[in-house]
C-alpha cells in the first residue's frame, strides 16, 4: 500500500474520465490520473503511482532509480503484484501500440 510505483503513461483512454494506460517495466495496466488534474497527464509522462492513482510526475531517470530502489528493498515483487492486480474498470487493457 505504501509502495510508490514508477510507470510511463502510454495512452489517455477515452472510455471514462481520468483513465490512462500505463507501462511498468513491460506490464500495462489502467490507472487513474485524476490527481494530476492541475497539469493533465499526457502520453510519455513518467509518474509515481500509489494504489492505482498517479500521484506525481517524475523524470525518466528518477523512475529508473525508483524501480532500482524497489528491487534493492526487496519490494519489487510486491510492486509488480500490485500493478498486475490493478483491474480498474471492467474492460481489459488494450495491447501495445
Amino acid at each position, binding site marked *: *500500500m*505504501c509502495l*510508490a510505483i514508477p510507470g510511463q503513461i502510454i495512452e489517455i483512454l477515452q472510455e471514462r474520465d*481520468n483513465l490512462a494506460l500505463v507501462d511498468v517495466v513491460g506490464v500495462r495496466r489502467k490507472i*487513474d490520473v*485524476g*490527481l*494530476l*488534474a*492541475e497539469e493533465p497527464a499526457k502520453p510519455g509522462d513518467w509518474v*509515481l503511482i*500509489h*494504489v*492505482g*492513482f498517479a*500521484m*506525481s510526475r*517524475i*523524470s525518466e531517470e*528518477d523512475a529508473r*532509480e525508483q524501480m*532500482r*530502489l524497489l528491487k*534493492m*528493498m*526487496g*519490494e519489487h515483487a*510486491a510492486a509488480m*503484484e*500490485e*500493478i498486475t*492486480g*490493478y*483491474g*480498474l*474498470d*471492467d474492460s481489459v487493457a488494450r495491447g501495445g501500440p
Partner: protein
Amino acid sequence: MKYVDEFRDPELIAGASREIRRLADPGRHYRFMEVCGGHTHAIYRFGLKDLLPENVELIHGPGCPVCVLPMGRIDDGLFMAAQPDVIFAAFGDMMRVPGATGSPLEHKARGRDIRIVYSPADALKLARANPDRHVMFFAIGFETTAPSTALTLLRVRAEGIRNFSVFSNHVTIIPAIRAILDSPDMRLDAFIGPGHVSTVIGCRPYEWIARNERKPIVVSGFEPLDILQSIVMILRQMKDGRAEVENQYARVVPWEGNRAALKAIGEVFELRPYFEWRGLGFISQSALRIRDSFAAWDAEKHFLTPGVRVTDPKASQCGEVLKGVLKPADCKLFGNECTPEHPIGALMVSSEGSCAAYFNYEHRKSELVTVSA
C-alpha cells in the same frame, strides 16, 4: 560494507557519512525521528545505522498506517464483514493484522467473504460486478492514500452506486507529530520528514515544527544517499543554529504539495474531533471521517458500528515502540512470542513496521563491515 556495491554512488555515501561525523559534535547526543515507516524500512535494509556515529541516534516514528490502527477498528471492520451479503475489501497489508477475534485472513478462513484489492477503484469494481452484495472498503493510510479513496467516492456518487461503502481509517500525519512532541518522555532534536505524504501535503504544514518548536525538519527521499543527505542537512542547520523546513526530495515533492489531491480530500472528508491511535492514545483532529454529504457511502453509518475498544495484548509493548520510547528488541515478546510468522502486534506485520524491519535485517548486522570513514 556488504551492501556498498548496490549503492548508486558508494563514493557519495562514504562522503556523506564522513560529513555527518564531521558535523556531529562528539560531546552531544542527537536524536532524530524518521516519521515515515518507508524510511524505517530503508534504514534497516541498508544498515544505515552503521554509517552513523554512535551519538547520532535514529528514532522510528509513527508513519506506518497499519501499525497505528488500534485493534478495535479491525474488529469493527470484521463485525461489518459478518453482516449478510457483505464483501470486505482491503489492501493486502491489512490481511494479517490481528484483531481481538483474529485477523481478516483468519476470518476469511472461517467463511467471511474477505478480498484483497490493490486500489480503492478495484473495490468499486467489485461492487459493480456484485450488484446484489454490499462491498465495504476498509480504507487505511495517511495523506498518500486518502486522495484515492476520495476520488473513488466522488465517482461512486456521480454514478449513483448504492452497494458500496468506505470504512474510513485514514489518519493525518501532522497531529501525530504534535502528539509525539507533546509527550513528556520524548526528547527529539529534529525530524526526517516523510517523502510520499509530503507529495500530497507539501512542505508548509511542517513550518510550525521549525518556527514554534525550533526543530529542523528535512523532507527526505528513500534512497540511502537521500537519508544520509537529509541527516547532513539537519546537522548543518543545528550547527548554524537554524531550525527550518528543508526539502531534500524536491525531485518528487513540490513545496505546495498536490492541490488536486488536497481538494479531493477536502470535498469528501472532514477532520474527526478525535481518533484513537495505537500507542499515542486519543489525538484530536488526527483522522478523516466521511462528510455528511457522502453519508450514504459511509460504512460507519451504514452498519451502526459497535465502536469496539480493545486493549493490546498484555505484555506487548507496541505503543512504546511506536512512540520511539522503546526499541523493537526491548519488547518482551520480540522474537519469541512475536515474529513475522506469528505477529502479535501490527508492527511485526507490515514491512514498514519497525519490529518487522528490525527482525528481518538485524541478524545480518554481524555481516556488515563499517565503511571506512
